[in-house]
């Protein structure tokens, strides 16, 4: 038999039915839901008189619209309250486990799945959120779905899916100091563009990927969708097993050993073929900053805002011109000269303990620039928050002039009251710099947590490699 990729192995193990010329029926191991995209799915089920087939395989959490301030106060946003009440009601009626906004395990859906060990290698995982690709860091096939598909999974625990092509994204060599997983994935998207991965599942390989922690791997996989790929994956290894051992939903003792033995069969076979390969020299990477209105509009921190005239393709030229107008940036401006209004450290991309540690190290003993209106740290989950506080990270951030908040999606999407005002500019560790993403008229620059932290101190971007607190080298 020909060698198989990690993707092939998981796909084939989950085929319930396949017929030539039709999409396959794929079994879904874990289904994650949140208040934002699930109410219409439950309503659809009810209208059709259908039930949730396997409620114990679905986990719900409140994350998108929750306040990151005092959650014991009443929810004043009536629409958000409606979402919370709908999710509570739907979970109670169907028997789905809900981590509500008062749960100690509450957090962003893509943070708590791995943290609780709900996410495991070899699984198929879906969620009505495009950043479900995060879970691929464990060697799972995980992707975002629409609300109709949520309804389909609730009713059948399956999805009808066409297979994807596979692209090996190979990082050769080691990453330099000051370069994180965030910079690695931004470099990929900068290279292939935001549609470069359409129709593909990425598998990240190579020395620099192996050298990443699970947190870093999650950051990379998280932004696969920003390169157009519905899913990104990293083959499980000792780093994966060590992370998972002892987590709430991970088996113990002999059963864990058995599970590990199975997980070890998942990595891509040596003779397997990918449909495409992208090779990146990790040693040539640098901290990245986006300058435009999608994550592919990105450059190294030492560079300048590009001149639209420098783009060969007419479409790119026009898009860049439009983006610079929206971002109020002049071609040729040094990235380091861009002044900021707010800094956001958080989101399903970069709000795990490692991210907060790296950022805290940068700001320790320093203070946020007076020119800044706000600097915000929003832990990805309450568990991250508790761990960070146990290490005293909260005190470091607060002493430096940051606000230390409760867990949620927060300013990445601005569905609660954490938003940019029109015309304001942010350095953000989140994943999307689309027009209006962080609030109408908002101008977002995507960066790593270290870069965001340093930018907060200086009030503009700085090259973190010049700072002694920069970590990232292996």
């Amino acid at each position, binding site marked *: 038999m020909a060698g198989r990729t990690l993707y092939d192995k998981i796909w084939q193990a989950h085929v319930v039915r396949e017929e030539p010329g039709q999409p396959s029926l794929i*079994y879904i191991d874990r289904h994650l839901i949140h208040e934002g995209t699930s109410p219409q799915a439950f309503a659809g089920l009810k209208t059709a008189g259908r039930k949730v087939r396997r409620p114990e395989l679905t986990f719900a959490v409140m994350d998108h619209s929750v306040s*990151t301030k005092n959650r014991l106060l009443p929810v004043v946003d009536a629409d958000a309250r409606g979402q919370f009440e709908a999710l509570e009601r739907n979970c109670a009626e169907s028997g789905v486990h809900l981590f509500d906004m008062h749960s100690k395990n509450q957090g962003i859906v893509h943070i708590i799945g791995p943290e609780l060990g709900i996410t495991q290698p070899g699984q198929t995982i879906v969620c009505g959120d495009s950043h479900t690709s995060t879970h691929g860091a464990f060697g799972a096939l995980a992707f975002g779905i629409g609300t109709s598909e949520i309804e389909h999974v609730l*009713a059948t625990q399956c999805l009808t899916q066409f297979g994807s092509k596979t692209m090996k994204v190979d990082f050769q060599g080691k990453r330099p100091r000051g370069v994180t997983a965030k910079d690695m994935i931004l470099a990929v998207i900068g290279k292939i563009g935001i549609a470069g991965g359409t129709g593909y599942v990425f598998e990240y390989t190579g020395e620099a990927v192996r050298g990443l922690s699970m947190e870093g791997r999650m950051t990379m996989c998280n932004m696969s969708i920003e390169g157009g790929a519905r899913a990104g994956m990293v083959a499980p290894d000792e780093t994966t097993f060590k992370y998972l051992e002892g987590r709430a939903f991970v088996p113990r003792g002999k059963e864990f050993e058995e599970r590990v033995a199975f997980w070890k069969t998942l990595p891509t076979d040596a003779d397997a073929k990918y449909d495409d390969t992208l090779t990146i020299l990790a040693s040539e990477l640098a901290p990245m900053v986006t300058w435009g209105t999608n994550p592919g509009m990105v450059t190294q921190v030492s560079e300048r805002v590009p001149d639209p005239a420098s783009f060969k393709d007419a479409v790119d030229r026009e898009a860049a011109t439009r983006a610079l107008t929206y971002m109020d940036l002049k071609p040729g401006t040094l990235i380091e000269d861009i002044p900021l209004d707010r800094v956001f450290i958080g989101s399903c991309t970069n709000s795990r303990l490692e991210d907060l540690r790296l950022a805290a190290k940068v700001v320790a003993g320093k203070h946020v620039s007076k020119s800044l209106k706000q600097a915000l740290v929003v832990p990805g989950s309450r568990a991250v928050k508790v761990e960070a506080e146990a290490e005293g990270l909260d005190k470091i951030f607060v002493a430096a002039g940051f606000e230390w908040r409760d867990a949620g999606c927060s300013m990445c999407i601005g569905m609660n009251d954490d938003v940019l005002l029109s015309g304001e500019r942010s350095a953000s560790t989140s994943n999307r710099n689309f027009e209006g993403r962080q609030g109408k008229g908002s101008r977002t620059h995507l960066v790593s947590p270290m870069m965001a932290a340093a930018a907060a101190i200086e009030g503009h971007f700085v090259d973190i490699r010049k700072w002694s607190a920069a970590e990232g080298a292996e």
Partner: protein
Amino acid sequence: MEPFIKHTGVVAPIDRVNVDTDQMVPKQFLKLLTREGFGRVLFYDWRYMPGEKPNPEFVLNFPRYKGASVCLARANFGCGSSREHAPWAILDYGFHAILAPSYADIFYNNCFKNGILPVTLTNAQIDELFARTEKNVGYTVTVDLEKQVVTDGLGLSYAFEIDPFRRDCLLKGLDDIGLTLVHEAKISAFEEKNHRHPVMYEAVDVKFHSETPTAARHN
């Protein structure tokens, strides 16, 4: 789901690449609990000025595109967020078909779940359609799914490819879930053979009610 067989309508051009679903339905409208009524907010930030006054510079507000029901778009249409609110808004606004050189995966899928036909044409064909839309006020095309062709009554005729299974589902307006439940026995058999229950080996999900979240102290 309403079947899609053939549709004739006025074309409205959205002449931008990489239109993301955040633009189609901004986040503040993701808190609604139904699938209806999103047409009003389609392209909200582009379409309206403060006070929800129509922005006269946005193409959908041009009188000549009033009542348009075919959306002409550029590459990577619908990228970004998985929100199905985007195709709900497209449909509720009145668009039944989209013509573009390429789509983002999740959005493309979501269209089919809502009876919207996303037609993929070549860049050159899309360019020609933009030119004709610009030139002819009230420019109208017919999108025929049965024959897999886009025509305009002015001699233009573009055949298009589409997956036969997706085509069949749209033509018949088939209910996806109903289709899958036909294979219930196979799903049960798969579960018998493969399924593992998720076991919580350590009790989690204690409530925070009893204590004040530390966040409150700083705000």
